[in-house]
């Protein structure tokens, strides 16, 4: 059930210069069950120039804590990254429908930049479901390959950096591992990357899911601002029918 919850910022880490990891602990309410790929609408308590909440993908959650991996993309996300331990944060969660967690065959989880955020939880869930996963993580440069250690603990992990400072030199979509056979791909990253992956998956008819990040207002399917034009239903809310879509619904 969706709810509004207050959290304590237990820990606030600066990652790769341009990112922040907020480790939150619920103050009063019990943590709801959260599916990989779901997101939270996060109030920005400390920014004069923002008005709406910020939709942030859930990086990790258990009974006792919740992680948000935030990219400094503007005033609001900057303010969130600047929050220090001890601050309070109000979230509306869990929102949206996440990635499929019952998948078979060889599975690739592919993330670009902060897009790796939901893949951490997804990997953990798939492993719990006895599904082997391969990770392919892309970033502009080595120190922006986020949470690499955590991914390596979960399985075979490949890396691509635009500047070649770590792993394959080039766009993540040009990584050789993509030449191998996969039955299912879950992907989250910048739009050009997701479009390129969609093209590859369609061409090789790989079952593939994408996590979108359309601009949102309400986050609960009420305002119809965040719509994606789908092949089956036309404009649908990314905040409720997504953020994760099977590519066969996308008109890309």
């Amino acid at each position: 059930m969706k709810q509004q919850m207050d959290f304590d910022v237990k820990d606030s880490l600066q990652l790769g210069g341009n990112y922040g990891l907020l480790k939150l602990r619920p103050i009063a309410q019990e943590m709801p069950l959260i599916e990989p790929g779901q997101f939270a609408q996060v109030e920005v308590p400390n920014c004069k120039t923002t008005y709406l909440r910020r939709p942030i993908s859930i990086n990790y959650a258990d009974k006792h804590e919740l992680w948000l991996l935030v990219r400094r993309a503007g005033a609001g996300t900057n303010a969130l990254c600047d929050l220090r331990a001890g601050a309070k944060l109000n979230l509306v969660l869990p929102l949206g429908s996440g990635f499929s967690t019952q998948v078979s065959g060889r599975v690739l989880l592919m993330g670009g930049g902060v897009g790796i955020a939901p893949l951490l939880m997804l990997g953990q869930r798939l492993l719990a479901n006895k599904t082997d996963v391969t990770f392919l993580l892309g970033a502009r440069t080595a120190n922006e390959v986020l949470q690499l250690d955590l991914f390596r603990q979960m399985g075979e992990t490949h890396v691509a950096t635009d500047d070649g400072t770590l792993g394959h030199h080039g766009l993540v979509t040009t990584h050789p591992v993509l030449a191998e056979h996969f039955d299912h791909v879950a992907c989250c990253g910048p739009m050009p990357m997701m479009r390129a992956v969609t093209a590859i998956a369609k061409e090789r008819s790989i079952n593939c899911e994408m996590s979108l990040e359309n601009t949102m207002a309400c986050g609960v399917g009420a305002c119809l601002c965040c719509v994606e034009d789908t092949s089956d239903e036309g404009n649908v809310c990314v905040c409720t029918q997504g953020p994760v879509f099977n590519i066969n619904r996308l008109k890309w």
Partner: protein
Amino acid sequence: MVDLSVNIGGGLTLKNPIMTASGTYGYGEEFADFIDLSRLGGIIVKGTTLQPRQGNPYPRMVETPSGMLNAVGLQNKGVDYFVKHIYPRICDIDTALVVNVSGADVSDYVGVCERLSDFDKIAAVEINISCPNVKQGGMSWGTTTAGAAAVTEACRKAWNRTMIVKLTPNVTDVTQIARAAQDAGADAVSLVNTFLGMAIDVERRRPYLSTITGGLSGAAIRPIAVRMVWQVAQAVTIPVIGLGGIMNGRDVVEFLLAGAKAVQIGTANFIDPQVTIKAIDYLHDYMARRSLNTLSELTMLS
């Protein structure tokens, strides 16, 4: 004993003056996890048209200082889908169910009203002559007294329960439009709908919205909305329903003091999905602290 009930015209009494604004609250269901919907004075469901509409292309929204621009453009599945599939799910919520009605030409408005009239649990319609995000109809009806009168008069013939006419603030003198709606048979007027606005992405050197312009809502517009409600409340005899940038209970009281009989909370639901309940509780406490028993006693002091 504080009694928050209020009559908003056409014999419709709300249990309290706090309603939710059309287009910001879906069909109410979307907020059922957060609040007890039956505590609301009323729910105004999203703009409904005769035919299904896909609305405008994405992007439809951009944040602005203390507000947001939207360009949804009345996306909805049409009145037939509404009465068949949505109405049955929400008609038993113990609150006043109001359907916001939109269209391109008068016959569209009338058609929706006629289709809705068979469904008893619809307490009222809100005739939307103020949507800034559609090429045809919408706001163009609400910017002239003749247009407002024409739509109101036609809908009046097709709808015999409470009829609210929702006004646009994008006019020189909103009191003239309000009077025209009153004279053409409106039981109440609601104002303000959104202000036509625009924002430009200076990095991409393009408008943020696919439609270039959109409707501005949020706290930013509240001072203009309060002024218009105050002007209209003195210009008409029918109830005035105030909206525009209400963020909390204090703001609700501000609109009631300005002369509104009831209010609608819109954009604030995106920021606090429980804002409506908090506002009802604030209003009750505000009245009790001042020993005000009914809303008719909540007036400006001189």
